[in-house]
């Protein structure tokens, strides 16, 4: 029975079911907010989650990875992110019900009253500080900070991992070259985050939890933060082992596990498989289909979608055209990630445009 559960978990945490399952779960949680925001549900999550941890503790393979001192924060991350997502959705649900009934949001009602900073706020801060100081000291006394062997540039550890908070980006390296996964996308994440207040013209939902007044914004952030950031960090920490191969949480990290990877460029699909001739040698000719696809994706697609989508960015001034195109550009880069992932899983696509001669691969 125990082994069966372990095998099942090892199977459903493989990248494809892991990612698609998480996406489905997010959609269900957001869709059925009345049920997913029930108190009993989060209580059940915490109970089952802790029980699972205790049970899985006994497994040597699980124990070796999950209980590494530096992985404790990931456990904290999982529990706190689930809890706070639930809490925010619950408050959003309650507020949406209030607003539908014609009442102000909970925060709106509370913000009409004012209290003295001393003692009400100062004491909360003090208690938080005392609790966190105590927790940090207990944590520090009970778990020693690890120190590995003296650095040796000649001996590469396998796997070599970036710090855990960058593992989402390292995971992208499976699908993209470093100039996209390590430079372009991180820059776009920062730029995109900074652009949010200037792109979101919806005046509602300013300063209180709500879902129905800004369904797209909230869902989009959930997808970005939970599905593409936090879940990738978890995947990278717990499920990626030697040679960046995938390992289930109960699987032994076998150095010799090699997954056959035969990934094929779009140009090979086009010239060899479709036209039945060898690929031309000139890079630009060879990659013409991929280049056409990328140009169409980034230049023509936003133009085509302008008619139905543009009005969502209108806030009484002409800048909505700029706003729309900036947003679409960021969105399309973001969308390239799941697109490439899906194509990799289904048709083993390596590159849309593959010009290794110039280090230019998309």
């Amino acid at each position: 029975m125990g082994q069966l559960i372990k095998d099942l978990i090892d199977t459903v945490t493989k990248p494809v079911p892991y990612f698609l399952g998480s996406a489905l779960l997010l959609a269900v949680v957001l869709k059925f907010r009345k049920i997913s925001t029930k108190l009993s549900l989060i209580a059940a999550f915490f109970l089952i989650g802790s029980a699972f941890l205790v049970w899985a503790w006994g497994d040597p393979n699980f124990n070796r990875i999950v209980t590494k001192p530096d992985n404790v924060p990931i456990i904290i991350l999982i529990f706190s992110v689930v809890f706070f997502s639930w809490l925010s959705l619950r408050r959003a649900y309650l507020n949406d019900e209030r607003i539908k009934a014609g009442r102000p949001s909970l925060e709106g009602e509370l913000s009409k009253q004012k209290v003295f900073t001393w003692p009400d706020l100062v004491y909360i801060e003090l208690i938080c500080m005392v609790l966190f100081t105590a927790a940090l000291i207990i944590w520090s006394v009970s778990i020693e900070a690890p120190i590995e062997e003296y650095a040796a540039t000649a001996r590469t550890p396998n796997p070599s991992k970036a710090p855990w908070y960058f593992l989402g980006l390292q995971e992208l390296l499976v699908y993209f070259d470093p100039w996209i996964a390590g430079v372009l996308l991180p820059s776009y994440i920062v730029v995109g985050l900074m652009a949010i207040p200037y792109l979101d013209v919806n005046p509602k939902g300013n300063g209180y939890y709500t879902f129905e007044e800004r369904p797209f914004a909230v869902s989009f952030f959930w997808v970005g933060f939970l599905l593409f950031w936090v879940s990738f960090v978890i995947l990278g920490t717990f499920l990626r082992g030697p040679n960046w191969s995938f390992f289930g949480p109960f699987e032994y990290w076998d150095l010799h596990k090699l997954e056959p990877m035969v990934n094929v460029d779009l140009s090979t699909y086009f010239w060899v498989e479709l036209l039945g001739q060898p690929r031309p040698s000139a890079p630009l000719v060879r990659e013409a289909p991929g280049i056409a696809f990328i140009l169409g994706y980034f230049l023509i697609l936003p133009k085509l979608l302008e008619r139905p989508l543009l009005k969502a960015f209108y806030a009484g001034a002409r800048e909505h055209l700029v706003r729309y195109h900036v947003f679409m550009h960021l969105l399309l880069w973001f969308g390239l990630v799941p697109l490439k992932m899906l194509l990799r899983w289904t048709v083993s696509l390596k590159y849309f445009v593959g010009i290794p001669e110039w280090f230019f691969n998309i």
Partner: protein
Amino acid sequence: MNKLLDALRSTQVWKSIFRHGYPDTPRNRTLAILSNVFLHLHPVKVRRSGIQLSYTWCMGGLTFFLFLVETITGLLLMFYYRPTAELAYQDIFALREHVPIGVMREVHRWAAHLMVITVWLHMYRVFLTGSYKPPREFNWNIGVILLVITLLLSFTGYLLPWDQLAVWAITVGTNMARATPFLGHEGPGAALISFGGLDFVHAGDDVRFGLLGGRFVGDAALLRFYVLHCVGFPLVAAVLMAVHFWRVRKDGGISGPL
């Protein structure tokens, strides 16, 4: 006991420090905030929504608190640590072996992990409550930069123990810089910047070289990361935090609908 306290409170020394009586009246509660340089970060009164934990999650405050923890423990660690490839590892090892009840490295490390999580959750909360909307747009931007700096602080600190984990994590991380378009020697477009067969962007002068002060993670990289970790980024973070907190009050006050 009470008499003793009363006597203490009527001394000139006490009165010179605290300009008001015990804060149990509206007047004294106001003065408690206004006459204290630290507390006057806060307004005298706040909205009730702003102190509701299930609304604010306290994550911004905790991030600031953890920054202070990092500053204090980091200062103590600096007494024992010499940033050279030769000595760094020994010094970290000696912390464990020779410093009695030494948990400062542990506190520093775990609080750093925690700070990354609290920053993320703070941003998550601010987004979900739409608290980046006008007039708070600019402060959201300051917040994003602070988030990046938090990650950079953690990243630069990662190298300092100079063990296998540290050096290889930084190697993996900084290898990305090689692929920077035009500026990294393995980046697209870098080959275009060459004149008469002479490459201008190569492994000895690209952005990665600038980041590490060399072609690989060595002594120069350690010193760079150390200086940035202990002085550079904390200074920038402190300045931006001042702006962040100030703008919270200027842009409509803490946590509440606008």
